[in-house]
């Protein structure tokens, strides 16, 4: 499997996905959607690592993607547990309701 392709497309795809995730974080108020958009952004960063690893034919990019994957798993488990506690306290998923927290 030896082909030649435009390496810019992979990086551009990563950039577009990251920007879409950023827009998602900024415009949504639901905590579940914010967590999903953070997943999109982490995935886009991993895509950029893998494209760079494919450019130089080194496994380091894939290793970095595995670490991003581990971090995303840990982050999403803690984030979803926080969202559950948040919903139990406030009966809503609105992120602005966190302003009512006391202590």
């Amino acid at each position, binding site marked *: 499997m030896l082909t030649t392709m*435009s390496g810019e497309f992979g990086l551009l795809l990563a950039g577009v996905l990251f920007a879409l995730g950023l827009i998602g974080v900024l415009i949504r108020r639901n905590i579940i959607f914010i967590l999903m958009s953070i997943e999109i952004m982490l995935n886009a960063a991993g895509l950029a690592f893998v494209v760079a690893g*494919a450019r130089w034919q080194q496994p380091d990019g894939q290793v970095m993607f595995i670490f991003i994957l581990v971090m995303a798993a840990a982050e999403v488990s803690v984030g979803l547990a926080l969202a559950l506690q948040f*919903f139990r306290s406030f009966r809503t998923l609105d992120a602005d309701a966190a302003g009512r927290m006391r202590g």
Partner: protein
Amino acid sequence: MLYISGFVAIISTLMVITRKNAVHALLYLIVSLLSVALVFFVLGAPFVAALEVIIYAGAIMVLFIFVIMMLNVGTASVKQESQWMSPAGWVGPASLSAVLLGELIYVMTNSGIRLINVSMVVPKQVGISLFGPYLIAVELASMLLLSGLIGANHLGRRNGRWGNKKDLEGKNS
């Protein structure tokens, strides 16, 4: 093939951030992750493509589905979402992010990488690199997963008693 899956990823991600129902958005997110996995495979990284399907589209999305099921917010949240999604709320952040994306595209197209010769980086190389020079990072990742597990377990308790969420958190580690 790379271009088709790339465009599928972009379109489905666009659908993720605009859906009102959380489950629909989650299904589109799974489509997006699968197409990114296809991009990884075409780029010559089959191990990472498999990990993307198994861990992202499998474990993490199952975790999201469980939480959406436990929250059990149905049509009421869809109505609430349509109230929150007013044009005045999303035009500003979206246009500013689009400006940032335009700068990024400008930088990449001017001094980016032109052509890459794709040959497969096999899982053996990844494993040798992972447990050779990156061994300390693997240990740190295991500590991160342990702290994530303990944190999720602690936060997931309901009022001091051990709830039934313990078996849920063990899935992703």
